[in-house]
């Protein structure tokens, strides 16, 4: 925990070693922190008024009403009355850090990985922390049928992408696979010129991947019989095996159904993204049990295929029983105002519970990370935001953001505040310095 506290700071100054020894050798829970008195939205359960949440070693240790939670002796106590605690916000579709995927050479480039291009020192990453975000799915663009592998980033403070990665049990960085259909990925050859050609090219790629996988299976572990390693094929095989969730950009009603058709043909797991026409095919989406990651923009239009987008998409999908999350598509919408997307969802008829879930737990589910984040439950990562009031009020501010128990954004810190509010220097990367001094308004 990086929380300044009267109890700990003097001790830290005098004998940091002693503290470490104590923490390692006793049950004093000197490394626990209890947030006391806040209104807590665990999302996995009902709202807790006058709640207590205890955080230890980056995890949530306990949570509940003040009368039900035993605050460990020695825990740092943080008075949080009047404030609201929500799970850290999860953006299932973000371009912060501007990580890109494939180039103009081919419509299908699953070998490319945003991990190799994202700039985690970007001001946009700072703004995301200021918006209460703790986890993003960093996506390549939609100008390809398959533009590359996406990267799931925990917004820990760090100067290199490795500091923000989420690794699976084998140590492999986690992420999905970005696909797109509709007009964005249609252009001059070798890109497809029509929707049917788009689908045909995708089919061709996955059939190859099936064959590649069959060779591997046939080899049964014999290195002599293994096919040559092929990065394109490896990523697609991961998708076929459900190890890599397909995040599929799609707008028009028929394109949405095409995604579901391809999913059923090849058996990959898919999350539908944007889904502008969702309201037209909500029943079909629900029957297919396909989760939807949607966006809210302030006026309709842009391109023909997205023209019919409705503010009511969230409500209609929720009522149809579809798992819904919101996304920023940052820079399309600003991560600092991510709560606003859900609030506008409520404005257009979504339930408050559904809208908050769509910013948190639903997103975690769509990234396959709900076992570790997305709601405030004992044992999960301590990813949360402390906000000043009702999550859906324009007047509410994100005060602090925590990732795995560490505070990564603090509105009272002038340097963080600059990113939250704007002003001279706010657009520069984290490392920007002029004459030894960081720019400030």
């Amino acid at each position, binding site marked *: 925990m990086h929380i300044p506290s009267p109890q700990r700071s003097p001790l830290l100054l005098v004998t940091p070693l002693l503290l470490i020894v104590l923490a390692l050798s006793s049950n004093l829970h000197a490394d626990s922190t209890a947030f006391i008195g806040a209104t807590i939205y665990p999302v996995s359960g009902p709202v807790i008024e006058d709640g207590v949440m205890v955080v230890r070693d980056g995890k949530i240790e306990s949570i509940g009403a003040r009368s039900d939670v035993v605050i460990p002796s020695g825990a740092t106590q943080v008075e949080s009355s009047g404030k609201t605690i929500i799970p850290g916000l999860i953006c299932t579709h973000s371009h912060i850090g501007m990580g890109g995927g494939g180039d103009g050479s081919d419509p299908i480039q699953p070998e490319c990985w945003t991990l190799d291009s994202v700039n985690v020192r970007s001001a946009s990453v700072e703004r995301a922390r200021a918006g209460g975000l703790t986890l993003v799915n960093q996506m390549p663009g939609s100008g390809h049928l398959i533009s590359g592998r996406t990267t799931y980033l925990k917004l820990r403070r760090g100067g290199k992408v490795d500091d923000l990665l989420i690794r699976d049990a084998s140590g492999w960085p986690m992420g999905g696979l970005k696909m797109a259909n509709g007009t964005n990925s249609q252009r001059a050859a070798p890109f497809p010129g029509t929707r049917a050609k788009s689908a045909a090219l995708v089919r061709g790629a996955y059939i190859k991947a099936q064959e590649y996988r069959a060779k591997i299976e046939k080899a049964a572990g014999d290195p002599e019989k293994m096919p040559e390693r092929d990065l394109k094929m490896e990523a697609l095989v991961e998708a076929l095996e459900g190890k890599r969730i397909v995040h599929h950009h799609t707008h028009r009603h028929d394109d949405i159904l095409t995604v579901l058709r391809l999913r059923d043909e090849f058996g990959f797991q898919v999350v539908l993204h944007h889904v502008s026409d969702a309201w037209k095919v909500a029943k079909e989406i629900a029957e297919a049990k396909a989760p939807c990651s949607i966006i809210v923009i302030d*006026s*309709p239009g842009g391109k023909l295929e997205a023209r019919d987008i409705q503010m009511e998409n969230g409500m209609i999908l929720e009522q149809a029983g579809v798992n819904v999350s919101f996304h920023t598509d940052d820079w399309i919408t600003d991560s600092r105002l991510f709560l606003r997307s859900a609030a*506008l969802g409520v404005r257009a008829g979504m339930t408050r519970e559904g809208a908050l879930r769509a910013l948190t737990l639903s997103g975690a589910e769509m990234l396959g990370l709900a076992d570790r984040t997305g709601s405030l439950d004992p044992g999960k990562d301590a990813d949360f935001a402390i906000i000043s009031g009702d999550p859906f009020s324009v007047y509410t501010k994100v005060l602090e953001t925590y990732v795995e128990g560490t505070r990564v954004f603090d509105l009272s810190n002038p340097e963080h505040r600059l990113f939250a509010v704007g002003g001279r220097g706010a657009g520069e990367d984290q490392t920007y310095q002029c004459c030894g001094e960081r720019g400030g308004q």
Partner: protein
Amino acid sequence: MKLQFLLTIALTVAGFTADLAGQQTLAIRGETIHTMARQADGQWMEPIENGVVLIIDGKVAAIGAASAVEIPAGIRVIDAAVVTPGLIDSRSVVGLAGWLNYDHDQDQLERSSPMQPELDARDAYNVREPLIQWVRSLGVTTLHTGHAPGQLISGQTFIVKTRGDNVDQAILKSKAMVVCTLGSSGFGSEGKSPGTRAKQMAMIRQEFIKARSYMDKIEAAQADEEKEAPARDLRNEVLVEILRGERPLMITAHGSVDIQNALRLQKELQIKVVLEGASECYDYFDELKEQQIPVIIHPTMMRASGKGQNSSMETVAKMVAAGIPVAMGSGYESYVPKTRVVLWEAAIACAYGCPFNDALGLITASAAELLGISDRVGSLEVGKDGDVALYDGDPFEYTSHCVGTVIDGVVVSDQQR
């Protein structure tokens, strides 16, 4: 055929009857009415609790507490929790820019030449543009719209109500401002001049020198019958209007250098300037005050990148505190959203330190004052246009709805949005 004919007759008669019955006459009862009228000292009037706005023949005929305003029998009465003047978007491109990013739907920027002040927004305004309906359903009744930033002088703007079946019915003020863009976004396309800031300034100076000479010749001819007036020149005619102070040059400038250039131009040319965008104007409050330059500030949710990378959500609050005339526009978006909604932008300003009335003023009374249309719109006062927006709660709250929009006493939107 016969049936269709009869139907047409019936509809015509129905429409006629409605008109005769006074379609532009109605009463609005509001639990809270923000009149946005000013007291003699310039301070905002307190809102009216449980009040009535009575609109007769399209104009506000009476406004006050329910006990003080008698509603004539038989007229339509609408109830709302919160009532404000119809909203004003102080800088839009809607109607020239359509909702689709295809050439046929984007008429806001002509790139053939860097300076074309002769382009008249009336000639490009699509009164049936869906975005007009969209902003209207969120309470916007007046748009200051026209040519977009993106060329050194891209054309003119005008002011419309968000109603009408043709452009003439929509017009509130046919000649508003002339659009100028300083900084890299005003550089010429495909390598054409201007390609630098210094070139931009030189080109503008030269153009106004020409216009001044044109003006001098006209005046000389007017004073002396022997002297011949110069041949008509559309471009110079518009620039002369600026030189004569009949309309302002609206300069879009965001960065520090570009704002300084705008300030310098105003001093050199002695013209009326309105600064637009103005992301980094927080460093120039003294100059803006001294030179009496009002600001149409960028939407608060403008992207914090590129020219807006140093924009701040608190700028409006600081300007209001400093006493600088300010209004808010939706600006121009090249991608999406195709228009921002000024109600939601002013809401963010309010959340970031701007007092409620001043934030609402950005999109009502202060906007009308800045645009020179406060005799007609911007506040709910007797004699002004019956333009009203209705809400079911705090207009700025994300979860409140606009439940109705009225223009000249006509309900133009009654859906909950």
